[in-house]
């Protein structure tokens, strides 16, 4: 078994496996989760792994960490096809597809530099989630691509 193959199939004991991440987005997913490698738990990343469904996909295995709903919400914006497998004692006990939320609060920054949410005001950014993007609740700016560049974590 090659080391590469082993990485892809190695099992975790407790934690989360996020599969079917849009190819190349796994580092952004880690950023959303606030994981930068300084934590105690181990993280495995597979990038651009061949996938029947997506062509190429990323896969993340995070030992000892489960995801909150707000993390899953944001994840859905940059990896709409992702599946989230909760693993306990080496077994997948829950397998969920991400669901798009109706809004995301305090996570994305508005690309409109003249938006009040970018001023020094005591408000969180708020975006309505549309079929193919998100829209700022304050200035109505629409953000369709490169959402990950506007993740404000």
């Amino acid at each position: 078994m090659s080391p590469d193959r082993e990485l892809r199939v190695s099992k975790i004991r407790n934690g989360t496996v996020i599969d079917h991440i849009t190819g190349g987005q796994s580092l952004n997913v880690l950023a959303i989760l606030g994981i930068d490698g300084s934590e105690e738990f181990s993280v495995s990343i597979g990038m651009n792994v061949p996938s029947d469904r997506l062509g190429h996909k990323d896969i993340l295995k995070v030992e000892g960490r489960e995801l909150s709903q707000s993390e899953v919400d944001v994840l859905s914006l940059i990896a709409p096809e992702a599946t989230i497998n909760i693993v306990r004692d080496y077994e997948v006990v829950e397998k969920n597809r991400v669901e798009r939320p109706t809004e995301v609060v305090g996570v994305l920054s508005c690309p409109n530099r003249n938006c009040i949410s970018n001023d020094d005001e005591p408000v969180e950014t708020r975006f309505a989630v549309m079929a193919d993007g998100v829209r700022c609740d304050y200035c109505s700016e629409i953000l369709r691509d490169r959402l990950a560049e506007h993740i404000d974590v």
Partner: protein
Amino acid sequence: MRQDHLITATQLSRPDIEAVLDRAREIDESREAFEQRYSGSVLALCFFEPSTRTKMSFETAAKRLGAETIDMGSVESSSVKKGESLADTVRVIEGYADALVLRHPSEGSAKMASEFVDVPVINAGDGAGQHPSQTLLDLHTIRERHGLDDLTIGIMGDLKYGRTVHSLASALTNFDANQHFISPESLQLPRSVRFDLHEAGAQVREHTEIETILPELDVLYVTRIQRERFPDENEYHEIAGEYRIDADTLSAAREDLTVMHPLPRVDEIAADVDETDHARYFEQAHNGVPVRMALLDMLLGGGSE
């Protein structure tokens, strides 16, 4: 109106618009009946960027209703310069006034302000965003002349940063209006406005020159192309010159074409147009008072009766 605030024109339904315009017509016809209706009320004019006309128009409207107005003085001398947040400013002023009129350079400022106060907030221009009270007076002007259905309107100039254009285009989707947008490519409608028009199923066409569409128009709404949008002075002059009309240009127009402009104009409408029957921009500006009286009446009065 169903709302407590007037933030964007997209929130306005056809019945909302008609209720305000009907009230404005009523006020026009019997001003005395409204004269002291709001004595004892205070309207705060929070202008974070200068706008003599809009401010005076609201001020006059309030005074004709018998209400007092307060304002912040010049932005330079106010606490804004000392770094106070807008959220704090409006929360303080809320304690003094029954409603706030807000003009601010940032998009979304009126929306944010409305989340911090319980009194009605009227957006009097938020950056390049929206200017819905202007739209109501624009619609009043159009309605008195042509009605609001079966209308072909051309909107020309700076469509990208023109907040009056964004509000007007949205509001017109409530009516049977063909909208033609005439601008240089660099100043076309922003994506968010296009999206709203598309969602509303509006009939919209875009042009880079006025000549092709002019003969079809009932209304031509002209806006100013701002010099500061162009890094190069020559480029500005070249472009601005192409979006300028004079009496000669209008010889190709329908006899009953109405020419409008939110004012101030610089030279996009030549002075010789003023003498023609097409010119309605001063009347349009005057309509600001009854329309804003109607708006204040409905917001201060707590909804339609």
